[in-house]
């Protein structure tokens, strides 16, 4: 069904903000979402339901598939609005490559027409070349606008988008659009090659007088050179715009990644395995082996002022008496063998004091401990009343402890 242009533009004129809202939202829209936008962008006395109906009648919104409850903005309308609102869509490298292929095909046809001196085919090829060049020019223009808008958006964006996310997006623009485009449009790229061949054939057409429309021929030649130079300039400029942002975001992204990795490693493996590669070394000089002047002077003075004395005489004869500590140790080592013959012992402390009444308190306790913790015996405190045990130099109060062999 054809749409009446007058009705279409009248509706658009009265609903510019609604159309902008729909265009900015993009994607599929349900009736409720469309009604919400209509309410947010009212137009005079018109009922929202009427606006909703008109949107569909004028084919501004079309169903995603026959009978669907979801709607899309019709592609021609979306393009018109993008044009009106100066919102550019970047052409992908595939689109430009498509143009180059189309141009190459047309040029082949032109070459054949020139060989066959087919004036009609030459004219048709001329028109096609002209149209393709205009499309390339328009798309390059739009791509440049889209890239510059994106760069401006990053520079002004203050939302809480992480550095790494921003970096990923700018990398996308760099890798998806700028770099591949430069590959296509550079001086030795496929676009230039197609243009050179086109120019050669246009010259041949003129020389062989197969074109009557000389102004059109010269227009095409001029346009060829213009688009070729323009394409390279546009994307070189885009790269210049985007490169500093790319570098800066790349650096920030790596800083963020480094910090995150260091923390992640610490969290996962703990400090002991964190490793020194995450530490930032700081110099700390300690002159531990270099004495100061004052220390040297003191050392020299001590040497100089050292009073002479006879050398010590070493006693080489073997000691006659065993040291006390050794005697005590031997006694402690002998205890298990002694007690083994009396097992089971009902009251270990009582047994010790009975056998060794001359031992002082610390020795008795040492012997007691050695026996209690000896691996051959098992000690158990009884629940009996506390006894007072007299030692050689004091007294010990304790519940009796029985000792049996294990």
């Amino acid at each position: 069904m054809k749409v009446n242009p007058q009705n279409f533009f009248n509706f658009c004129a009265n609903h510019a903000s609604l159309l902008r809202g729909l265009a900015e939202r993009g994607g599929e829209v349900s009736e409720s979402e469309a009604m919400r936008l209509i309410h947010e962008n009212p137009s005079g006395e018109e009922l929202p339901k009427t606006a909703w109906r008109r949107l569909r009648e004028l084919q501004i919104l079309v169903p995603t598939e026959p009978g669907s409850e979801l709607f899309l903005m019709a592609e021609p309308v979306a393009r018109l609005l993008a044009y009106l609102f100066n919102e550019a869509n970047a052409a992908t490298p595939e689109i430009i490559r498509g143009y180059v292929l189309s141009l190459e095909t047309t040029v082949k046809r032109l070459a054949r027409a020139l060989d066959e001196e087919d004036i009609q085919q030459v004219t048709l090829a001329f028109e096609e070349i002209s149209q393709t060049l205009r499309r390339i020019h328009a798309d390059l223009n739009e791509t440049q606008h889209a890239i510059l808008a994106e760069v401006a958006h990053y520079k002004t964006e203050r939302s809480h988008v992480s550095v790494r996310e921003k970096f990923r997006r700018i990398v996308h623009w760099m890798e998806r659009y700028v770099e591949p485009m430069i590959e296509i449009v550079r001086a030795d790229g496929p676009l230039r090659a197609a243009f050179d061949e086109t120019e050669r054939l246009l010259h041949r057409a003129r020389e062989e007088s197969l074109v009557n429309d000389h102004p059109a021929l010269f227009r095409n030649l001029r346009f060829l050179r213009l688009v070729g130079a323009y394409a390279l300039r546009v994307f070189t400029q885009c790269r210049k715009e985007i490169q500093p942002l790319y570098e800066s975001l790349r650096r920030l992204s790596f800083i963020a990644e480094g910090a995150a990795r260091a923390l992640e490693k610490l969290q996962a493996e703990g400090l002991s395995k964190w490793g020194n590669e995450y530490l930032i070394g700081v110099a700390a000089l300690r002159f531990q082996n270099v004495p100061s002047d004052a220390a040297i002077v003191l050392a020299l003075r001590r040497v100089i002022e050292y009073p002479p004395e006879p050398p010590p005489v070493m006693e080489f004869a073997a000691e006659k008496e065993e040291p006390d500590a050794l005697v005590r140790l031997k006694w402690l080592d002998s205890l298990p063998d002694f007690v083994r013959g009396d097992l089971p012992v009902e009251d270990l402390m009582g047994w010790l004091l009975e056998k060794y009444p001359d031992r002082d308190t610390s020795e008795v306790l040492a012997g007691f401990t050695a026996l209690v913790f000896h691996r051959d015996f098992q000690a158990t405190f009884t629940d009996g009343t506390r006894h007072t045990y007299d030692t050689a130099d004091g007294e010990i109060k304790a519940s009796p402890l029985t000792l049996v062999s294990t």
Partner: protein
Amino acid sequence: MNELPHLGNIFDRLKRGYHLGPDDEPEFSALCEWFDDYARYFAALGLTLVRHEREFFYFEPDNLEDVPITLPRIAVFSYIIIDHATNQGKPIEEFIFGQHFLVTALPHFTLDRYTSLLRQVDVHNVDDLRTLLNRMEQIGWVKIRGLGEDEFRFLRPFHRVFSKCLEVAQLSQAAQPDASQPAAT
């Protein structure tokens, strides 16, 4: 030049791990002007004077065999503040150098994850952070004195942390050869 200016002061500070930056005049200007002379002088003593590309100076540290506990503390503290800035979607360097911080308003105890990381290096509360910041002031990474109570700001030598982050990222990228390499520090 016959005699290097402020040699005693410069040596005295650098040997303790201090980083001399633009806040340290007149030593900083002297180092900027006669860097090669100072570097030669210290090289004779077996010390390497480093001029960071962000324009500050420090002695190259020995290998980190005997690591004092302050180094992991400083590292964890610094990585956390970078991580916080990243999570907030803020430009990291602008966030670090573009403002004064309050010790009590730092993000270090706002997340359980951060708290647990700090616990590993024995930093448990704001008082411990204050102690840590004092140490960072001693090496010239932050400025505390002369500012308001509990206030501090990061100084240019904090760029060493960024350099370390780039190094860490580079090491991890090395395992993924397809990824873009980090930019120079």
